[in-house]
């Protein structure tokens, strides 16, 4: 609980940095990241848990930040798209593959896609096309038709396995 009436105290590590805030209990995690922490890379596409644009990695698992209250993140470790590249700017293999494969157009679904795929490949680096299509079935992209996203994920899988 926060000392301030009606608010909740949240202590959360995002992209390796510790943040503490007092928030309204109804604030969802997506809005918390975007508006409280100004990490606007996480996007809000539907706020009802279907589009996947708001996906972040929450204690190693991909979650929809629109379906979770900020208060529930107390004590958690979160990675957002801003935290994917290394501190020296080197892109994560999935980011690199997205650029090489033209896996984004407007880029609005992209952070959610990236986080979903990064989490998925770290569990299943040998995933094939069917697995990947299944893994991103909860992420809607209106621009690309998905094929290049799948190709990027396959490429990144090879890199992560040390094959490319």
């Amino acid at each position, binding site marked *: 609980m926060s000392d301030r009436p009606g608010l909740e105290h949240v202590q959360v590590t995002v992209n390796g940095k510790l943040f503490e805030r007092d928030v*309204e209990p*109804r*604030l969802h995690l997506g809005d918390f990241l*975007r508006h409280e922490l*100004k*990490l*606007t*890379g*996480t*996007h*809000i*596409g*539907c*706020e*009802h848990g*279907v*589009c996947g*644009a708001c996906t972040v990695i929450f204690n190693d698992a991909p979650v929809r930040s629109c379906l979770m209250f900020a208060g529930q993140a107390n004590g958690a470790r979160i990675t*957002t*798209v*801003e935290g*994917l*590249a290394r501190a020296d700017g080197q*892109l994560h293999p999935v*980011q690199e593959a*997205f*650029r*090489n494969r*033209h896996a*984004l*157009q*407007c*880029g*609005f*679904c*992209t*952070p959610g896609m*990236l986080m979903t795929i990064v989490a998925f490949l770290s569990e299943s680096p040998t995933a094939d096309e069917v697995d*990947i*299509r*299944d893994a*991103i*079935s*909860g*992420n*809607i*992209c*209106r*621009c*690309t*038709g*998905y*094929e*290049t*996203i*799948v190709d990027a994920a396959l490429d990144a899988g090879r890199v992560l396995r040390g094959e490319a």
Partner: protein
Amino acid sequence: MGARYFGAEVRRVEDPKLITGQGHYLDDLQIPGVLHAAFVRSSHAHARIRAIDTSGASKMAGVIAVLTAADFGEQGGKMMPHMVPVAAVKQPLNYQPLADREVCHVGVPIAVVIAESRSIAEDAAAIVDVDFELLPAIIDWRKALDPDAPRAHSGAPDNLVAGLHGRFGAVEDVFAKAPHVFAETFETHRGGCHSMECRGVAAALAPFGGELNVWSSTQAPHMVRRLIAEHLGRDEQTVRVIAPDVGGGFGPKCSLYPEEIVIPLAAIKLQRSVKWVEDRTEHFLSTTQQRDQAWELEVAADNSGRLLGVRGRCVHDNGAYVPYGLVAAVTSLSAFPGPYALEAVDVKVDVVFTNLVPNTPVRGAGRPTACFVLERLADRVARELSLDPADVRRRSFVRKEQFPYSTGMKARDGSPVSYDSGDYHACLEAVLERGGSDFLERQKIALDRRRYLGRGIASYIEDTGLAPFEGATVRVQPSGKIVIQTGAASQGQGHATIFSQICADAVGVTIEDIVVEAGDTGTFPLGIGAIASRTAVTAGSSVHQASVAVRDKAIKVASEILEAAEADLVLEDGVVRVAGSDAQVTLGQLAFRLNGMSGIPMFSGIKPGLEATAFYEARKSTFASGTHLAEVEVDVETGRVEIRRYVVGHDCGRLINPMLVDGQVRGGVVHGIGNALFERMIHDENGQPVTTNYADYLLPTAPEVPRIEIIHFESASPLNPIGVKGAGEGGTIPAAACIISAIENAIAPFNVRLTEHPISPARLRQLIKAATISGETAPIAREEAIMACSIGVKRTV
């Protein structure tokens, strides 16, 4: 000028920021002290507003103001200006920024709450009390012209928005003499745009001088500026509209919306910055859609299956207002005669009001549905005459040697429609070849195992590069970096990349030396909008022309400085060199010199600045074309359709960046897959939207979507200096027609004719069941039925 970048698969310059979360979409803009808006919207499809009680909401803590039309005087209540005012619109009815008299669809804005946070604004909006007097609503567009139909707007003489008519040739004669005439009715539906970023508007007053800054997630910032200025009675000079990074557009973000007037009005009234971001529910309710058409058509064909003529009528649901002219309906009409050299066409389109959200173009505009009916008619002819559907196309296409081909139709400006270039036959054959010759065999084997495979094709043309222009300035800075400024906004297409490619080649620099500024009325004076697959043609050509002019100027000035003949100079990698010597000058040095120094005169006859502005003017459209082929499997027990293969033959003239064109095509096809199988915006009989989330309204997701195999043809357009045509919508246009054709072919044993889209599993099951019960499926007829409409079976007629 070497082509180092033009035609190459250059990685996008837009991507680095977008893959690292550094994009700036509307809701990411950090505007100091900004207030948040939430709208009170009509909960009824048609009602009179008796009273609006804002007292409770106004008292809530954190609420700054609750505003209705009355708070903005004349500007709140008057009708908004039209984006494309056209004389054909009989009743040019548009929104008020905030309705205070009558609401004509669910979702019309009535009041706006401005508060310290969005959640407070929404809480307050929920307790604004609107007293409605319900009025009868017209929801079924098919009945909109019945004499006793409820009027979408009370007091209107009828529900007719406009009657359009396209006609050429001796129609009666052609139909009277044709050996075969077949009649068919169709119903088509497109759905919403569903850009992953919803709409949004923010407005702020500049601290000194009162310039109004508006950020809008729009496809057409200059149009928005023009209309805001017009509505607010301001000089355009005092309004700046910026489209930041935009998360997809697909057509509906080109319309002007009430929120784009209300948010600036509120900012001015309160002298505070105000932001509104549409949520997904509002998107379903208030962002324009492209819904229904009902067609009654006849096709005439000769004995060989050559198509001779099409005639009939379409009723087009316009929705409640006409914010954007008649573009959706007009593009359905002007899509005739498609890729076919018809002798006669006579098609009427009645555009009718309903009490539903307005119908404006969604990717492809009216073309996909027109393509659907034309292609279904071509398939019908094949079926009736037991022909290979490909043969009907072969015999009916405009032939390569006929270009430029005048179709007989008239363009929007009244000039004759002329197809500039193409090779429809070659494209068709290439697609069939890629599709493989073993399909019939596989289909038969599958059928023996009670599995239903089908294959369909669909061909199309698309008018692209719509008039009048987009302009561009190319400016070399003293640093040597080039900035390209253009009015053409972007929503993910990769315009900055293709403009950079064009400019880098034409000037002689590397792509890293170029930045693109677009979509800001403050940096480029004029612009039309990223619609109608027009940006590569219009802005691309302007970038090319301006770049060539910059290069010419650089060479000219360098020849003075280096005292060498222009013919001896080479401009490469940003440096002008004298061939065979060490003498050189960089573009940056030239720009520095041309930007002027006090007391030092310019070179005689040379204007200041190493820059040029060009406005390539598109007088006629360029026509892209193509053929798609789909292979599907239908589970006749469940109605489920699996797309097993999808091949695209695509001709958009010269390719600036094949990787980006492929992206446009794939995304377009998948949108068309949605239109074929999934996307239907449903309203109940009272006009209440029923499908208002992504559980009820289905978009294609990765598992349902096949790989899209693409074969490019490059019939250069003779109409612009870079030979290009548009690529943004061609993927979508024939996709629904193609998939439905394949499904019909798969279930040919049941003798079902498919004349609608989208088709859900339940609907398909229903059609199959109805056919089975009516006993039309004699097992013996199966094979013949399949043979009769399978593609790739060569027969001589």
